[in-house]
């Protein structure tokens, strides 16, 4: 009989109440865990949102500058570099004294290399000049400042022993472009 009382106390006094409380705690816990998980996702989303807003605000402040830059880059990169460079050379020739400086050749040595092979698209240009060193440097400065997309790959300067110190220059450029991306 005492065992019956003990089992009654154990079952009705401990096991069942604790089971009930345990079920309540479990439901509460599971609900809370799901809520926490959802809230953590919301916090991550909010963090991403704040980061995005910061990015947007920073970039929006620079929008005008970037717009100018994009326009300029389109101007520099978005045209046929062979023609553009040739025009630059011609402008130099027009203002220079032909006795001191002249272009001896200009060609597009390779088709436009696209961006697919691992680097920005470019056109391979080759040019040759003949003239006095200082005049050639000034001409090239003028040209290269107006065509900043040109990357000098190879250059050879050789002194012409037959003349009064004038030199011949052979130049190979990679002229970056967005035309054929």
């Amino acid at each position: 009989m005492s065992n019956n009382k003990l089992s009654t106390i154990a079952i009705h006094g401990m096991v069942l109440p604790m089971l009930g409380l345990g079920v309540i705690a479990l439901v509460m816990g599971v609900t809370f865990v799901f809520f926490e998980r959802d809230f953590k996702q919301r916090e991550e989303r909010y963090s991403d949102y704040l980061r995005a807003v910061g990015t947007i605000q920073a970039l929006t402040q620079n929008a005008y500058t970037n717009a100018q830059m994009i326009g300029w880059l389109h101007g520099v990169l978005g045209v046929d570099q062979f023609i553009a460079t040739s025009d630059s050379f011609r402008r130099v020739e027009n203002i220079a004294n032909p006795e001191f400086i002249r272009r001896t050749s200009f060609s597009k040595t390779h088709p436009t290399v696209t961006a697919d092979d691992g680097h920005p698209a470019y056109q391979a240009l080759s040019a040759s000049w003949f003239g006095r060193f200082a005049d050639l440097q000034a001409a090239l400065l003028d040209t290269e400042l107006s065509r900043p997309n040109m990357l000098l790959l190879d250059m050879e300067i050789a002194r012409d022993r037959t003349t009064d110190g004038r030199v011949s220059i052979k130049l190979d450029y990679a002229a970056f472009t967005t035309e054929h991306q």
Partner: protein
Amino acid sequence: MVKQVDKGLSYREISRQVSIGRLFEASRWGDDPRKTGLVWHIYVKGSDVTSTVHDKSGYAKGPAISIGDLQSSQALREITKGLSLQGRVVVGIMVHVADDFAVSSIRSAKEGPEHYRHGSILTQDNPAAMLDEKPTGDGSYLYLPLPGAKRAVAIKINETRFTGLTQLALSDPEVRVGIYSAPLEYLVRLSGFVYESGETLKLDADQCLTVALLYSNFIAIGIISEGGLHSIATLPIEQRTGEFRRSMTTAIRSAGFESSSLFVIESNESCGSAILSEVELWHSDETDEAEQASIFTELLCADYATVTQGITVTRAQPDVSVTIEMLDVPANVGAMFLQKSAPLMIASAASNVSSAARKSAQLRVTRSDAAIVVFARGLKAAAVIALIAGFGFMAWTVYGAVSSPAYRLEQAAADRAVAEAARLSTISSAVETWSRVIAPRSQAWAVMEVSSQLFPERLGVTLNSVRYQLQFGDDLGTGAKGFDTVYEFAGVGPKAAVDQLETLDERKIKEVFESVAGVASNSFFSDPNASIRVLVTSKQGQFETDGALDFNVQITRTTQGESEYALPASTSILPAIEELMKPVDLPTTL
């Protein structure tokens, strides 16, 4: 309604009996009614019922009760409710039966001293196995050892008269019930008289002490030898004058004793006065002296007062008056019944013949059960508190969460912002990448400036050729390609000038490049991370006859892939301006 024992107690019933305060009340958890907080003594002599209560403040007159009330559980419940102060005190009800005393024989195989230890339990549980004759009626049996004769007898008490008491015991866990044999209790307690009177009763082997307890409807006779209680018998009270003496003499002699002292204790004046008169007459030499002298050596007469006051025993000669505390078993009971038999007598006198008392014990929780219940309550309370605290914490956390802007932000708004930031970042990245692509890092005019600064006219050498090459290295996963710019100068000059050229080292070349960086306003040439190697060689010129030397200066300047001047290995599509100027869609408040 009487609780069915077999069904057991429900937890509600168990819990109702338990409180943390009660757990520490020792008087609440025993089964013995005399150890409760308040004991209600009911002395039953036929229809005459005497009531008294005893608590820590002493004895007091008990509530009025009739013999009929003992058959009504309702009446008893109402009385005990008042006595228990509405359940605050456990009440023990001790019924002392003074009108029912029947002696039965125990089977010879079960009456020896070796059965004394378990005889009481066996007799109560299974009297048929213990009694010499078949049990009759509804009475309960009490095992009474007779150590003086080394045998035992059974005392039968009819408890079925007290149905109300039985029902109360089985329905109220706050009540302890006991039914006791009053004559047997007296036999035990009388020993206190001998001690209190300062005399030590010494009995020879052929002597005994005869105690005659005169009740309203019977006489209980106990014969005590030096070994303890020797025999016990009842005689009907309706005896003719002289019958009592003859019966006593026969009983004593049949027990094998030559002489005896005699205690005669009267409990009812009207019934016992005749016998007392006979005894006194017989003691005053008006009877057969020879018979008297041969049997009774001393006569002691006692007279009951009320139960509440105890009993007053008066010795005939000399007059000694002693009040015996009736309700407490004297600790020195052994002075009369000898030490070895005293515990047996006390145990028999204290035996509760109520079968309801044993059954009701099963309906009560024990102290250990109560401790478990209290522990369970504490555990539940702690669990509930923890649950409430947990719920509070969760509610507080949830409230804080749902109040935060992070919770209110809609997925669509967040996605729009992230997409917008990504779009603008892509644009910015494209602008940045393309700006890096076209950053000045290899230009012909700058190479010519290096030549001019490295070989000024004052040096006195003639520069015949300049070779410049840009050689890309491997893309090492940095997203940009490092490269070497290789300058190679060849010429001729006098030995002194060439010797000066041979002093060119990395530091001097770096100075030249930094100078060019200043002229060109281009930090590429002053990149501190770029490494420079210089190699100067000279030899006698093949066509020179004036001792001039041919020289060759090779400079290799390495730009690492990690450098900001390394060429981006890939570019994104340069967006249109309109793409940048699209309006941004963002929520204004959250």
